Each structure stands twice: as C-alpha cells, then as structure tokens.
C-alpha cells in the first residue's frame, strides 16, 4: 500500500482479489489516510475499483477522493464521471 504524506495512491491495474486485499490494508490504516488518488500509469483492470472508492469514503467521510467529485480523464474510459448518491 502506497501512502505518502497522507495520500494513498491506488494502482489502477489492481484486480478484484488485489482490491479486496487492499481494502483490508486501508481499513487497518485508515487514520493515516487523508486523500485517495488513482495511479493512472496503467489502464483500470476492474470496475470494482470505483466501488472501493465509495466504500473508503463511507468508512471515513473526511477523506478527500477527488475522482468522486470531479471529472477525471482515464485512459480507455474517456472523461469519467462517477455518480454516487450513497
């Protein structure tokens, strides 16, 4: 898990099993995290990544996750808008 100065950078190439493992690590270290970003070096492997972002936000609402509020360009996905009502 890559946390630097409170910023967690999630590798976009993680598959579902890796995301599940990461979710446990985040849970155990959530107090250290202030912001979550996506490392877009590689293309997104699993759409489950977006679900994880919402779960993180639910776990600690003061974590900043820009992709949930702003449009972000992701390779292969174009200009991405994540619309979450809950």
């Amino acid at each position, binding site marked *: 898990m890559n946390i630097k100065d409170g910023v967690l950078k999630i590798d976009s190439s993680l598959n*579902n*099993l890796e*995301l*599940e493992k990461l*979710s446990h690590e*985040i*849970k155990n270290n*959530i107090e250290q995290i202030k912001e979550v970003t996506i490392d877009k070096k590689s*293309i*997104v*492997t*699993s*759409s*489950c990544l*977006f*679900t*994880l972002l*919402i*779960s*993180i*936000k*639910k*776990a600690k*609402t003061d974590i900043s996750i820009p992709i*949930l*509020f*702003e*449009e972000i360009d992701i390779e*292969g*996905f*174009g*200009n*991405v*808008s*994540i*619309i*979450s*009502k*809950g």
Partner: protein
Amino acid sequence: MSTTKDRIIGIFIEESTEIIQQLETELMILEESPWDKSIINEIFRGVHTLKGNANSFGFTKLGGFVHYFEDLLDFYRNPNNQLNKKIIQLIFDAYDVIKEVFELERDKIDKYPKEYENILKQIKESLEIDLEKIEAKIIDNNKIVIHKQHFHHDKFDKDEIKNISKDVKNILLDSINEDKKIFNIVMQFDTDIYIRGYNHTLFFKLFANLGTVVKSFWYMANNIPELEIFDIEKNYINKVSVYLVSSENIDEIQDVFEFIAEDNEVGISIVDISLFESAEDEIMESQLIKVNEDPIKNLSINQSNTSVSNSNTSAKSIRIESSKLDELFDSIGELVIAQSFIDQNELIRSLNNLEINQYLSMLNKTTRLIQNKVMNLRMIPIKDTFLKMKRVARDVSNKTNKEIELILSGEDTEIDKTMVDSLGEPLIHLIRNSIDHGIEANKEDRINANKEEIGKVYLSAMHKGSNFIIEIKDDGRGVDTQKILQKAIEKGIASSEETYTKEEILNFLLVAGFSTAPTITDISGRGVGLDAVKRSIESIKGKIHIESNLGEGTTFRIVLPLTLAIIDGMSVKVKDETFIIPTLSVVESFRAKKGDIQKAQGKGEFINFRGDILPIVKLGELLEIDYEPLDVEQTTLICIEHEKGRYVLQVNELLGRQQVVIKSLSKKLAIIKEISGAAIMGSGVIALILNTEGIREWLDTELENKKIK
C-alpha cells in the same frame, strides 16, 4: 478449500445444467406449438446464454456446437420460416448432443459424442451454410456477430447530454466532422457479473479496438457496503453510460456484447447531433454532477431525483444453496420442538394465566406459520419433471411404433425439491413400461378391443391429505394376473399351494428379477426395472401400488410424503418407550378379541383380520424391551401394509397421530434395520421411527427359520 475460480466454474456448471434442463422442457412445448415464435425465442435465449458461458469457461466443444445450433434456431425465429417435423427432430437430436457434450466437458472427458459431427453436418446442411463464411465471422475468441434483436431497447438518456462538459462536448462534435458517429452504449449488468467472470473494463478494452471512448458516466448503487464488508463478488455499479466515437457501424459495436447480451442488459444508440446543439444553452458547468460537495452526505437529498435504475437491487428472486435451506429447515425443526416443550410444560400449564395462555397461543400460531413458510420454500411444482416425461413418451413411441398421447394433469402440484431428483428415473421407467408393455402392440389390436387408435397414457399429480400422489395410468392391455402368478411360481417367488389376492399377485411385478417380457428390449423388460422403481420410491419414504384390469389398462400409484423432513406418524407406546409408525404404512389399528388369535406351533401367533390370517409381531420382543408381556387381547394391534403381505404390530398403547420432524440416527444406530430415524416429541421424549420394511424383513427371516426347523 475451493478457490474463487472453482466456485465460478461451479456456478457456470450449475447455471448451464439448469439451462439444459429447461431447454428439454421448452422443446416439448415447441413440438406441440411449432408455430409459436415466443417459444423458439425462449429456447434461443437459453442457447445463446449457454454459448456465451461455454466459450468463456473453455467448454469449446459445447460452444462450437451450440454456435451452429443457435444459427439454426435464429433462422426459425423469423416469422417467415416455419418449423417442420424434420427440423423439430433435428432440434431434438441437437439437444441430445448438447446435453452429452456438456456432461463430457464437465467431467473433463476429452471426447465428442457419437452423433456430434453427424448432427452438426445436418444443421449446416439444413441452413445451407457456407462453412467458410461462418468461420470468417468467428474472430479469435470465438465471437460471432450478435443478433440485432438483443439491442432493440433504447436506453439513451437525452438529459444526460446536459451533464457533459463543454470541452468534452466539443470533442464529440468534432468527431462528427471526421465522418464518425457517436454511439451511446448503456450497460446495466447484474450484480453477479464478477462471479460470472465479467468486468465492465473488459468491454472498454474491446471499445478501444473500435474507436475512442470520450465520456463515461458510472452510476453507482446506493447500497455499497462500508470498508469492513467490502465485497469483490458483487457488482455495485447500476449503470455505465459510454460515449464512443467510431467510424464502425452498429453491428460491430454489438459484437462486443456477444457473450453477455441479454434483454435489458445493454442498449446501443447512435446519438443525434442536434441534441447537443439544443442542449448547448442549457449546459451549466456546475450541473455536471451535482455531488461536488460530498456524494455521501447528499444521499438522502438526491435519492428522489436520481434517474439511476435500481433494477439490480430489486430482483424478484435470489439463488440460495439448498444446503442453506436445509439448515434453515433444521433450525425451524428445533424451534417447533422448543415450542412444544413450552406448550407441554407442566409448570407453565399450572399457572393457568389467561395472558400467558394468549401469548403461548400466539407463539404456537407464529411457529406453525414460520414452519409452513419454510416448508414452502422447498416446494416446487412437479411440472418440469412431468414435461420431461413427454420427451420419454415421444422417444418410446417412435421406437415402438406405437402412437401415444401422454396426458398430463396436476403439473402445478408442489413437491419437496429434494424428492424431485429421485422421482425422475422411476417415472421414466414407468412411462416406458406403460407404453412398451401396457399399450397394445398395434392399432388393429386396439380397434378390436373397441379402443381409440391412439394409446393414452395419463400422468397426474395431486395432494391427498398429507401425501403427494402420482399416477401413471394407461388404457392398454392390462395385466394378466394368471400369467403373473404362473411366472412367480416358476421363479420360486410364489408357492403353488397358497392363494393370493389380485393385489398380491400384481406386487410380484415389483420383486427383483421378475419379468414377463418375452423379449428383452432396450426400452424395458430386463426384469430389474420395476424392482429398482420400488427401491427408488422407498428411498424417499414412498410406496408404489399397482391396479390393473385385463383389457382395460394398468395404473401405477406412487404415494409419497409431502416432505422428507417431516413425517406423518402414529405414536405408540411399549412399556415406557414411544415409537412412531409412518402413517403411510398403516392400514388400521384395532383391538383383538380372544377368538381371533391363533397360535401355530413354533411359528408364533397369527390373527384373523377381515378374513386374512396375518402374523403378529410383538414390538416389545422384537426390540428386546424389558417389559411384562400382555395378552394380545389387552393390547392394541396395528395392521401394516406391505407388498409381501400385511402383518400386525402389537403395541401396548396407541397415543395418537401427529407430524414429527425426522432426526437421522448416528452411524451405530443406523445399522438397525427396524428403525429408520428418531423424533423429539413435544414432551421432550425421544421416539424412534419404525421402519416397516425392516420389520417385514425380520419377520420373513423368522418365519423362514421356523419353517426350516
């Protein structure tokens, strides 16, 4: 411990098995209504899903065959193309190949079914398919052109355009100038797509081969769990709306969804450029996604405004492992027992308090209600099993050259699911038997017997009391009981010195090795079938009865308990021990008079029961209970039905009739053949459930030993 991959393959196999079973039922309906395009559409959908699954999970032999079969079905979905008998037969033959090849691949046997190539060739010939053309359509991963019918739904949300930013909109509009089209693709997948091996991202990779994805909206579900219970197996993305710029035509876009397209899952539209222009003035950057402040906090405010489909969370049915239902049922059994404890507790009863009594009554009612509801969860209509028999009748009719009509009734009668699987084989055999042996050999014989040319076989189901009854009745020749008796004597099953009732003679048909068929065919007549039928029925606590009238026909009646988890029983007492006798086996309980009892030296006691001399089994002695033997006249006698002959059980007292939850015995106790299980009575007493078959076996051995001596 199974891996995720194993579990996914397990789900695929389970789903495919269900599809294949369903296909058989639908084919029978298709044969009856070949003009009904809705049925062939239904079959097509099942086959299409099967193909997608098969190719995705490496069942390539199945996928390859189904691919052509799907083409055949697709051809006949067209209202202008009518099915004929030859094609229907080909569809049936193709189904048989599909079933066999699936089983081979499932069992990892690297082999093709015998008819695989032959039927494939017939399908190709039937369609006049140019193999080369078809193969050219197959791309590297076995994808072929998807049928347009799957994409006729227009899911395009015009209002969504207002939420596209100006910059992105400009990119989209510029693409028009380059002679490209804007496709809006809406994907609304089930919650289980990850388990099925799919991911939204897979489709984005395929879009990349066709053009450029400029914009994507990801509409997330409201019920995404918190981090503690993050679930990677469930898709929480309700809808993904994609704007793809491409110079390809819509068919190429549709190809991407070859393996996942189901009605309502995917919608593809070409976006009308004028919509962008008219929306121009309305576009407000701030409107892009009104969740900028905090999407989580906005939950309750925005719910009513959302246009996101909640279809994923409002599924009408869910799949539950039957073992979980069994566990639930066991728990309900415990609840019923606990409730009975309370109900019969002397201390509580002695309170005689109106309020407590009302609460107890409420508890009692609610417990029974829950018990019935849970019981119903396991109940399914016998319809699918019955419809499969139509296929059996069809095949036997063809093989025997006998024209047959199988008439079904009571198909919607519900039965415990655990019993359905055990009923398939016995029913197949009985239907075959009715057609092969029951129905006259030719039309002339039927006409001479003043019957209709077409033989009739009736298959019916009904609930009667606490039993489920299936009847297989034919209007054929009937059974010649004299021939049966003669054969039974020749085989040493019956004695020429004894007299037998008609029912007893008919029951010889159920004895192992008995066969009256002059020749052994591959349909029936091997002499093992009816015995196996009887054993199968008994294994699910049922009974089989035969009635027959020479020249008029034969009826096989299967009587089953409604469920295997609960038994309707008579509770009896021997000294301080309580036993349960399955009510299905009980003919009558009665008190004996002195003159009715006869003692045969060295052979025990017998009783004259309605003219029949029946052996008496003293339950106390049989189970070696330490008790003071009573005279037969002072006790209760219970006549037990058995195809080898009735017998009478002697017990001290008849307590009553009630339904009890069956508890299985430990391995050590399970070897006692006279006992089949146990039940906890409302008083907390454990009662053993008697196995009337085992007692009959013991009795026969006893009588045989005494005869030898």
